[in-house]
């Protein structure tokens, strides 16, 4: 029994499969979000060192994790699209970028607003915040390159190259920034320096991370469907969709 890998690789069948899955992911995301927020604000104790301000961690850390994770997933799918020439993989990679960039922005914003009460300044050149900022530049580079190229096929492949080059550079950038930061002003208090986290704090953060993950999947599937429709609008199966609704043009 050989598995037909390409069954759901065709945009047409993936369009309907994704259509069915999106509601489930969104519902799970909302439930996890509510549970996470409840734990974060009503169960987790006050941090003796940072008082109540540490509760920003429940959105900051999941966003930072997601921004890094989504970049890796984006590079993976764009690499697959480049290697196997499967258009759908590149569409998924293109769909991931905006959500990843948004999470990077959220991580930066919440990091800055958390740094203000803790370190007294909106922006501190802490190694992680700086590499998060550079990650945002990598996302923007990927998206603007793809936006600048009209032919979708070349856009996908060019995007794949810059995403893969970016992925190779992420650890290099992270360590050189880490090195640069400790060299200059000594290791500033890192964001999650707090002593071993209370179980409920950790639970709250993990649940919020899963909520963010489910949310990303739902958003990426929706954007992939939009991209599929945009790129396949001249195909028969999209015309057939029109037939379903009886609108003939």
């Amino acid at each position, binding site marked *: 029994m050989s598995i037909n890998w390409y069954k759901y690789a065709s945009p047409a069948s993936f369009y*309907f499969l994704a*259509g*069915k899955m999106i509601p489930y992911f969104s519902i799970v995301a909302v439930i996890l979000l509510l549970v996470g927020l409840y734990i974060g*604000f*009503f*169960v*987790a*104790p*006050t941090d003796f060192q940072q*008082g*109540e*301000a540490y*509760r*920003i961690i429940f*959105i*900051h850390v999941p*966003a930072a994790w997601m921004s890094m994770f989504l970049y890796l997933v984006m590079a993976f799918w764009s690499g697959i699209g480049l290697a196997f020439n499967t258009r759908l993989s590149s569409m998924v990679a293109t769909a991931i970028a*905006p*959500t990843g960039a*948004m999470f990077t*922005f*959220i991580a930066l*914003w*919440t990091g800055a*607003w*958390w740094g*203000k*009460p803790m370190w007294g300044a909106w922006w501190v050149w802490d190694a992680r915040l700086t590499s998060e900022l550079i990650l945002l530049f990598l996302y923007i580079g990927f998206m603007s390159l793809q936006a600048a190229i009209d032919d979708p096929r070349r856009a996908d492949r060019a995007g794949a190259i810059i995403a893969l080059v970016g992925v190779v550079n992420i650890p290099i950038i992270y360590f050189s920034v880490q090195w640069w930061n400790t060299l200059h002003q000594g290791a500033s208090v890192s964001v999650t320096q707090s002593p071993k986290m209370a179980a409920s704090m950790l639970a709250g953060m993990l649940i919020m991370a899963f909520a963010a993950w489910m*949310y990303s999947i739902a*958003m990426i599937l*929706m*954007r992939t*469907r*939009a991209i599929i*429709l*945009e790129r396949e*609008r001249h195909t028969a199966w*999209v015309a057939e*969709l*029109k037939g*379903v*609704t*009886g*609108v003939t*043009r």
Partner: protein
Amino acid sequence: MSWNSWAEFFSMGGYGLYVWGSYLVSFACIAGEIWLILNRRRTLQKYLGLKDESTTREEK
């Protein structure tokens, strides 16, 4: 961790501005992204003439 009053909850131990500031902006971004995608789908459906959420393909 029970908050005695809503006022105390919103003051968040004096850090209310920062906590609610970051949460507000984060959820604003998420809401913005959702709205953008729904808007994109709506224009697509209008442009392509698809009436409704055609998720199920009627097996003719």
